[in-house]
């Protein structure tokens, strides 16, 4: 498996760039890295709210929430989530939150 390095810390990632060891390796530096690759300019409280909601749900349920549930818990309509995370809630937000790659095939 690949690893990537950001500001001197290295992380184990899968081929789509998701953290392999999840919360064990997740830190603010990781957030800063994902910000740079997923088209996010400035981290805001709104970004943080999405990240917190994802991590909380994941801790409780062991999977990422459905998009609709994410919208409900954060109060952000889907459109806003795409504005915050241009590559979407799965590829952008889940990656930043350190969740494993959401499953889903075609």
């Amino acid at each position, binding site marked *: 498996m690949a690893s990537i390095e950001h500001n001197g810390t290295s992380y184990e990632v899968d081929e789509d760039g998701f953290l392999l060891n999840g919360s064990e390796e997740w830190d603010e530096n990781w957030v800063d890295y994902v910000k740079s690759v997923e088209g996010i300019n400035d981290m805001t409280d709104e970004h943080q709210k999405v990240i917190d909601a994802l991590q909380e749900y994941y801790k409780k349920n062991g999977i990422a929430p459905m998009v609709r549930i994410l919208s409900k818990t954060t109060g952000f309509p889907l459109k806003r989530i795409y504005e915050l995370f241009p590559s979407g809630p799965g*590829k952008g937000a889940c990656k930043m939150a350190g969740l494993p790659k959401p499953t889903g095939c075609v």
Partner: protein
Amino acid sequence: MAKHDTPLLDELEKGPWPSFVTDMKRQAETHPECWDILGQLELSYEDRITHWKHGGIVGVFGYGGGIVGRYSDVPDRFPGVEHFHTVRIAQPSGLYYSTKNLRALMDLWDKYGSGMTNMHGSTGDMIFLGTRTENLEPLFWDLTHDLDQDLGGSGSNLRTPSCCLGESRCEWSCYDTQDICYHLTMHYQDEIHRPAFPYKFKFKFSGCPNDCVAAIARSDFAVIGTWKDDIQIDQAGVKEYMAGNYPSNGGAHSGRDWGAFDIKKEVIDICPTNCMWMEGDELKIDNSECTRCMHCINVMPRALKPGKEKGATICIGAKAPILDGAQFATMVIPFIKVSKENEYENVIDVIEQIWDWWMEVGKNRERVGETMQRIGLPTFLRVMEVDAMPQHVREPRSNPYVFWKEEEVEGGFERDVEEFRRKHAA
């Protein structure tokens, strides 16, 4: 990328048929990664297991769908297919391409991908097979800016809508399939590009019950053209068929000698509802019994035509889950007007009624047909505000003493049975 020995695949080049192995070998001359597809497939044949990994997550900024991430699990041996993502590209309504556009698409894919395509996938869109993650943004830029085209849907969203060629060429079309397909594609851009559903959702539009896009088998929301009044009969035309002056089925069977046309054997006796007969030399149809199967019209297109009061039937919930097996869509709305005059407002209302409900009660990765099955058709009909009618019923119930709704039971489900029986003492 080197050529691999592929003795098992080479077997598929034998015989008189076209062979994808031959095609890929030819493609490999300009796109050497195609050798690695063949190499990996050969290995899969030997190992009897696929060497593609489970789906990845890749995409372009702004969209959550449209590209299906694919990776090899043996990238060291087959570096050409280390990444082999599938790109879905929205097809023109009714599949009308200009050669100029086709060339531009192929040039685009030659530049950014393997050059391998599948025209078209079951969803109905163009499937471009095999590219690397770093090519996705430039490909998307050229596609949208130079070709003015768009990605299709993938993931838990509205999939690229598709339609038969409808009124543009087919006299049987009961509404403008191409127009509604295009209109709803534009209307639902958000739903196509930004997945928010429990699972995939497909629209398909067929102009008549021949259902050339197999909407009833492949879509969650199948709009199939139909008519309310009577099949139009031209008795003079019927006579011409009977006299052998017009070829049956538009001449489709002319390659072989099936003998003289026999209207009884070929039409009347195989009408599925037995609603046709001859009165003297006139063909009669009891239209109230006709199920609009199209058979008689297909056989004698110059004598029979769909009626004049045209619209569509809406069937909901086809699916083909791997474990349960395939299931057709269920007829829910027998007749609806489909007209661009109201910008399909009435059809949109039906769609949104389904979505509002399914987004609320559908489980993750549950197609609407599965949700309908789980909840039951009577409840679904109530959600859709459609009155139940005999055509919704697969078979009549055998026990009339079952009540589904509490309000149908005097005193409710919790009533005191002792008290009730006292009035009816034996």
